[in-house]
């Protein structure tokens, strides 16, 4: 199917070795810096809030886009998610990571935006039709566009939880625990949703 040409790890750069057996080992300095940033944001420090937006906007936007299948609506949802989260920081208790908590809010915001806009069916996010004009994506150019569209289309056909589990893990690098927090399910369910999603993608792309 063309997808089997993968020569394993060749061409994949090895970056900072922060993950072993799929488990993120959070850097202590990073965790402390983030805690400080969150505390400043909680007290109303606008600059701290803006830093959080810059840090997490890609994750929030992509998650909303996966739920909605529409980039314009995903932009609205991303804005709603940040406004809601940063004005409700007192609700963040630190049980999960801030990213997990924020992604949960992003998923809810996306669903609200979807309901407001009468989107009854979540659809695939076909990037080819929506890329910003005049700014080709280098990563996108590196692969066969047909393969990308086939996988994107197949991913769009999965049930929501499976689609999000696959996207959050494969694209955004979340652990199963983080996915569980974002999808408000158990870690085991997050794991099963991911495997089921990958299995179905294999079948759809066969």
């Amino acid at each position: 199917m063309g997808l089997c040409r993968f020569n394993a790890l060749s061409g994949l750069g090895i970056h900072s070795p922060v993950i072993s057996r799929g488990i993120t080992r959070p850097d202590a300095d990073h965790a402390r810096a983030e805690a400080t940033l969150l505390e400043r944001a909680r007290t109303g420090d606008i600059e701290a809030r803006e830093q959080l937006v810059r840090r997490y906007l890609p994750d929030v936007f992509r998650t909303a886009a996966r739920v909605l299948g529409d980039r314009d609506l995903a932009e609205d949802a991303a804005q709603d998610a940040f406004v809601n989260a940063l004005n409700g920081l007192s609700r963040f208790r630190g049980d999960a990571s801030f990213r997990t908590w924020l992604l949960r809010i992003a998923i809810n915001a996306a669903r609200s935006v979807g309901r407001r806009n009468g989107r009854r069916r979540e659809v695939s996010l076909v990037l080819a039709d929506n890329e910003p004009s005049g700014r080709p994506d280098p990563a996108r150019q590196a692969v066969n566009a047909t393969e990308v569209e086939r996988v994107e289309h197949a991913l769009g056909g999965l049930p929501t939880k499976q689609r999000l589990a696959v996207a959050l893990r494969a694209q955004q690098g979340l652990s199963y625990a983080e996915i569980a927090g974002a999808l408000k399910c158990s870690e085991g369910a997050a794991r099963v949703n991911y495997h089921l999603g990958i299995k179905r993608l294999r079948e759809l792309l066969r």
Partner: protein
Amino acid sequence: MNRYDCEAIRDLLAPLVRGEMLPHESASAQLHLDDCAACRTEAEIVRVLQESFAPVPDGLESRVVAAVRRRSLMRGRPARLALAATLAAAVIGGSLVFDRADRDSVSDMDAVSWAAAQDPLLHGRSALPELTVEELEVLLEEFDR
């Protein structure tokens, strides 16, 4: 050098393809992928998904920053006291929902652990990738129950 089996590899594909594993782990994974067509296929799916990462649209960051700044400034005004009260009520309600979700999550996990222990088909995390779609759906129903 330890070699991974299919179960281990499939759980590691995302960090593997993202280049986030230790070098010796990547080398072990490579050994398995060289010999296993099924895992190579899944690795390719993960790779294509990563390549198709949606770019953040131009202007979205400044739009969101402006909205956050506007909302943050509004919150300090006395005229917004009623809104603040409403938000406080929502926060309390939200906290209750989160509390309940946490409890549900724990009991959900217990139920599934029990179900997995009872059923050899679903026994243990290591069996997950070997299950069929139908079997995985059965397991998922146990989680959702």
